[in-house]
């Protein structure tokens, strides 16, 4: 990253436009131009001022484009050029932004230098774009407020379709005040109207969750692009269809599809008869605001700040499905082999080999088994097939690597250690067999026989057998899963587990175990993937990845990124890095026999990725093949939080090569995002952790170079503590995490349920409060005091100890001093002590001496006592304080500033003698912001940076002289981030500061300091 940090804006994407290989996206007031082939950002244009972009309207010849939003529009010319054989475009702003007197819902080109715009009061304005002049304004008779609208240029007029607050779409011609007709039927606000006059099709979407498809109910012979047609025709509702579980925001009509997008993050593809063809989840549960499509692709922009490209083939070519007809008897178990042939174990005690090329069974191996209870397992490379029965008869086969595929029998033997209860391959050479009484035998082949490599002992449990097994690359360490969800780790030569990880997965046990690069990765039927670290033979729990499907079975790739499983009856393939479902097949649940593989194959000149699934249904062998390029959506811009970010801390690496953002929000996620510019600017969430409720605060403490303690807290009285390490592995920045504490004041749901037995089941009178803010204060080596400001007015203290091999977290006291919700806290050093400030909803500010009065040996003394007192208390703002900052000026002097709901900033200077206030000066400014002040930061040279819900960032300067304290306006700028919740200073020089404001999205910008 070159020294000045570039401008970054991530917020709702409210407008998109596709031009072949190029896509335009409206992100805040900036138009972004992306190349779809390289995913690169080609250009940004500041198209509007202080206003989001809601539409891009190119002229017919594609040489000009209107960019509009709110009350503004501007016009850019489009320069087309060639990059190799690809057409690329460049926008050249030409006109505007022009500010109209009302909100614009739709704009169209009517002539070469003339446009028509529909306002929110149902007025059509016609502008001459070269003279930048309003020519006419036509008012409709019905000028109630509109939520949406659509303009269609006719040969002799402009057709207006107006979506009202209440249920009706009113259609009129611009030149006439009297409406032509109303489309009645919706039961809520009309959010969007699309119209294709050639197809005589109108599509509306609404608050009422429905999509309506309207068409002519009378036959009119005049062409649909004339006023005459619209004067005579009548339209009615042809189809009323439901596909979304929340409000439907927009729709689009392509050659043969209707596409709708909604608040539920779903894209629905419909045919013109209202039949649903396909549904796709696209934006991490965030609302989808915008869409555009051409012949091949759909592009959507969402509330999670992402821009996603979807191949349109997904609607009609979702996989190839076939029933494989072959004489396979009554198949019981099926698996893919290395060469993607199929081995089938049937009820006739046969193992069959189905050749996929020849589409037939080419071999049948009779097994001589005694028991009908059979076990079958394939080695990790899928070359070796082991089949055993409960009595111990074992056969091992191998598929040939070259030439005609055949199955070769390697082993035929009888194991003599009692009833065989489970059998799993660990890697490619070891077969892990569990028999009666928890005896685990690890076998390897030797000639036609097997030999015992080692024996282990499985601890007592009910259903005492294994569910999965893994082995490390040195064949020294084994990890197995049992039916209670535990993972046991063994080392060759020792019978008992060297370590047991309790209850890693639910009661069905782990479904797969992978040991790799000093780590263990397990999957389970509890919807999670768990990571453990094995460095130096100590096992550390690192993290859990929560998936939105219950049954996670196994990885389909070598990088543990593509995982498959079941969501009830639907087979799911999921991409972990991109957090998206790749494939969904309703095949009937994971209890049937099934298998899946992933592979790359050449398709014409390109390579594409495929997923192939086989499963048994009604004794038939079904096969489904998915070409991912045809069905998988791809991010052009990565998403992040789907709702407001409440708290954020940035970390700039020392060499400024990259930046990390740690943020928590209303979407209950804590995210660590990495920004770097190595291959063009890129922003992606490297780690995501979930809380039970909204996250209100994150605080960090530097432990070491690139290693931090991360504390987050919020709703449902929850605090989580992690150690985060920023790593650079093979030139790729990654984040490693170790989860240490997940604590709820009133216990976790599980603990509470458990308690119900002995606790009377009456009403619990205590509210579950929210933790509003938190501070981490180091008190000793590896020892921290954590102070939590809570919504029930209590200040809660916790003691946290952390060292390499142990950590502990325990409550250390409650201070009941304030009477209302404590909103914000701040710590700073003063007289070499840690000072804590607490601020409330009533404008109170209290100063606490942490070092002398609240640190651990003292706290015990205060537990549940009411007499811990601040050394100084004052009231500044008229109501809630939403931001605070403070610093030491000298050994005796402190300056602090508070910003509140009353849109005022209070700056106070205080002189303390022995922690008693001896002098106070203060000033208040209430015209720097017109809404809640949510961020405040002191910079050098007496500068104060403040921000607010009003989307302004103000720089001011305080001065202390003989007349007292004053605070004066220096400069102000606007941010595109709505609902700003705070500001974080990333770095500061003598000339400027780079800051990040966050709220509904985030923006990184430079603020110049006065000379």
């Amino acid at each position: 990253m070159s020294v000045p940090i570039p401008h970054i804006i991530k917020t709702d994407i409210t407008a998109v436009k596709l031009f072949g290989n190029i896509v335009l996206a409206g992100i805040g007031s900036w138009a972004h131009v992306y190349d779809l082939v390289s995913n690169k950002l080609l250009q940004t244009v500041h198209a509007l001022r202080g206003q989001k972009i809601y539409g891009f309207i190119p002229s017919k010849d594609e040489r000009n484009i209107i960019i509009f939003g709110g009350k503004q529009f501007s016009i850019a010319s489009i320069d087309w050029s060639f990059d190799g054989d690809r057409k690329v475009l460049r926008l050249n702003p030409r006109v505007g932004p022009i500010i109209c007197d009302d909100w614009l819902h739709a704009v169209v080109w009517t002539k070469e230098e003339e446009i028509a715009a529909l306002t929110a009061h149902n007025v059509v304005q016609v502008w001459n774009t070269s003279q930048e002049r309003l020519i006419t304004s036509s008012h409709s008779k019905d000028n109630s407020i509109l939520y949406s609208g659509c303009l269609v240029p006719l040969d002799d007029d402009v057709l207006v379709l107006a979506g009202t607050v209440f249920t009706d779409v009113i259609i009129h011609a611009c030149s006439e005040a009297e409406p032509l007709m109303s489309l009645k039927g919706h039961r809520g606000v009309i959010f969007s109207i699309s119209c294709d006059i050639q197809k005589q099709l109108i599509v509306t979407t609404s608050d009422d969750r429905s999509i309506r498809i309207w068409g002519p109910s009378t036959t009119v012979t005049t062409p649909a692009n004339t006023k005459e047609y619209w004067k005579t025709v009548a339209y009615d509702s042809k189809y009323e269809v439901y596909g979304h579980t929340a409000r439907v925001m927009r729709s689009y009509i392509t050659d043969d599809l209707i596409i709708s997008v909604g608040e539920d993050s779903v894209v629905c593809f419909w045919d013109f008869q209202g039949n649903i063809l396909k549904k796709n989840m696209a934006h991490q549960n965030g609302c989808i605001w915008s869409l555009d499509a051409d012949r091949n692709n759909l592009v959507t922009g969402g509330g999670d700040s992402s821009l996603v490209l979807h191949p349109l083939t997904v609607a009609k070519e979702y996989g190839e499905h076939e029933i494989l007809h072959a004489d396979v008897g009554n198949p019981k178990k099926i698996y893919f082999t290395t060469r993607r042939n199929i081995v089938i174990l049937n009820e006739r005690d046969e193992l069959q080999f189905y050749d996929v090329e020849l589409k037939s069974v080419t071999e049948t191996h009779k097994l001589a088994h005694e028991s009908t209870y059979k076990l079958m397992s394939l080695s990790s490379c899928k070359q070796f097939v082991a089949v055993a029965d409960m009595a111990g008869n074992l056969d091992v086969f191998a598929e040939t690597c070259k030439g005609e595929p055949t199955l070769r029998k390697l082993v035929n033997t009888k194991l003599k250690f009692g009833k065989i209860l489970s059998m799993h391959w660990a890697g490619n050479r070891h077969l892990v067999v569990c028999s009666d009484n928890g005896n685990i035998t690890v076998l390897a082949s030797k000639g036609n026989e097997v030999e015992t490599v080692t024996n282990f002992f499985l601890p007592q449990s009910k259903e005492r057998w294994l569910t999965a097994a893994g082995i490390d690359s040195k064949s020294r360490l084994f990890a197995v899963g049992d039916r209670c969800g535990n993972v046991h780790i063994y080392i060759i030569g020792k019978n008992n587990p060297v370590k047991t990880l309790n209850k890693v997965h639910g009661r069905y046990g782990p479904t797969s175990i992978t040991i790799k690069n000093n780590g263990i990765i397990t999957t389970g039927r509890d919807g999670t993937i768990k990571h453990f670290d094995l460095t130096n033979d100590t096992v550390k729990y690192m993290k859990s990845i929560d998936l939105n499907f219950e049954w996670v079975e196994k990885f389909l790739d070598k990088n543990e990124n593509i995982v498959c499983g079941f969501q009830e009856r639907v087979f799911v393939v999921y991409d972990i890095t991109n957090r998206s479902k790749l494939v969904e097949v309703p095949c009937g649940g994971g209890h049937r026999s099934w298998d899946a593989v992933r592979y790359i194959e050449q398709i014409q000149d390109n390579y594409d990725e495929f997923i192939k699934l086989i499963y048994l249904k009604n004794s038939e062998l079904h096969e489904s093949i998915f070409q991912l390029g045809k069905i998988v959506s791809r991010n052009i811009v990565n998403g992040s939080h789907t709702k407001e970010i409440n708290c954020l801390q940035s970390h700039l690496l020392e060499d400024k090569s990259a930046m990390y953002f740690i943020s928590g929000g209303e979407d209950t996620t804590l995210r660590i995002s990495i920004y770097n510019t190595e291959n063009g600017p890129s922003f992606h969430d490297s780690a995501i952790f979930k809380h039970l409720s909204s996250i209100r605060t994150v605080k960090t403490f530097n432990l070491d170079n690139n290693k931090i303690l991360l504390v987050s807290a919020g709703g449902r009285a929850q605090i989580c503590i992690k150690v985060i390490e920023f790593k650079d592995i093979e030139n790729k920045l990654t984040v490693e995490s170790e989860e240490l504490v997940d604590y709820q004041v009133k216990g976790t749901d599980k603990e509470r349920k458990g308690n119900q037995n002995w606790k009377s089941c009456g009403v619990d009178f205590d509210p579950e409060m929210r933790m509003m803010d938190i501070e981490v204060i180091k008190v000793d080596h590896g020892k921290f005091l954590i102070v939590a400001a809570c919504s029930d007015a209590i200040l809660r203290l916790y003691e946290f100890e952390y060292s390499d091999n142990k950590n502990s977290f325990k409550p250390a006291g409650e201070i009941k001093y304030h009477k209302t919700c404590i909103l914000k806290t701040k710590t700073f050093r003063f007289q070499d002590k840690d000072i804590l400030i607490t601020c409330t909803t009533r404008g109170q500010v209290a100063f606490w001496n942490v070092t002398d009065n609240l640190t651990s040996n003292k706290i015990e003394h205060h537990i549940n006592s009411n007499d811990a007192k601040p050394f100084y208390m004052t009231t500044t703002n008229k109501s809630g304080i939403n931001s605070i900052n403070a610093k030491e000026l000298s050994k005796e002097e402190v300056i602090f500033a508070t910003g509140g709901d009353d849109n005022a900033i209070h700056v106070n200077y205080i002189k303390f003698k022995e922690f008693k206030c001896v002098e106070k000066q203060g000033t208040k400014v209430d015209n720097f912001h017109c809404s809640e002040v949510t961020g405040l930061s002191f910079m050098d040279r007496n500068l104060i940076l403040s921000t607010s819900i009003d989307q302004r960032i103000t720089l001011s300067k305080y001065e202390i002289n003989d007349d007292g304290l004053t605070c004066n306006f220096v400069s102000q700028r606007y941010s595109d981030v709505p609902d700003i919740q705070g500001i974080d200073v990333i770095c500061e020089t003598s000339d400027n500061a780079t800051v990040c404001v966050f709220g509904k999205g985030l923006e990184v910008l430079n603020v110049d300091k006065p000379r």
Partner: protein
Amino acid sequence: MGKTSKDKRDIYYRLAKEEGWRARSAFKLLQINEEYNIFDGVLRAVDLCAAPGSWSQVLTKKLRQNSEAEDDVKIVAVDLQAMAPLPGVKQIQGDITKLSTANEIIKEFEGLKADLVVCDGAPDVTGLHDIDEYVQSQLLLAALNITTHVLKNGGVFVAKIFRGKDVTLLYSQLKQFFSFVTVSKPRSSRNSSIEAFVVCQNYQPPDGYVPTMANPLLDHKYCDFNEFTGPNRFIVPFNACGDLSAYDSDTSYSLLLEGQTTYEYREPVQAPINPPYKEILDKTKNIDIRK
């Protein structure tokens, strides 16, 4: 989640049920009154965007105290949504931004003008802050336009306002019609909420101003005395209203409030009479999201 969880989360929700108000919003109007005495001498009032009707309840209770004769009191309540009847309140169902609705209201006050107009209008928020703020401001301006027809000189107008990025445009516009404009946040309104209330006192339309419903009032644009950015934005004084001892809407309280020994769960006072699209919600409940 138990049924008491909302009582726990929101003290005013719970108090509203205990005191018989249809919505917790009642406390906002009561607390504004504590600060500004907006009901003093008021007999005729308009309640715009009134459903489910807790402000109308407050108005009924307060205005009746101002007169011996019940007939002197006139309250007109308007909303898009149907509202359960309230004795003594004339109801109009309609869109306040629509000319026909406005005319209906104006007709009610031909002859005697209103002393007070209140508007608690809020749109169904989309989640896009600028649109939500715009639509809310249009409700406020529609209410102001109606006010210019029905409010007596010297009367009071109280309206909900979203303090978003362009709120100063509304402030400067209101200031043209009223001598005193302040913005208030009742203690029953959440700290984190964007909503506040403008209290506009002493209605004095500009000289020669002729009220017209033919065109909607459009909001101002930024200009010299009200810049887009800079020290000259038009900002009105702020007040926090409601007693300091009043409950705080951000604070989590125990179900057993101080001084209480028992707690009893109560049902809401007035269930919504026409829950929006109930049958549709039932329909979409079983939508298979994976088709």
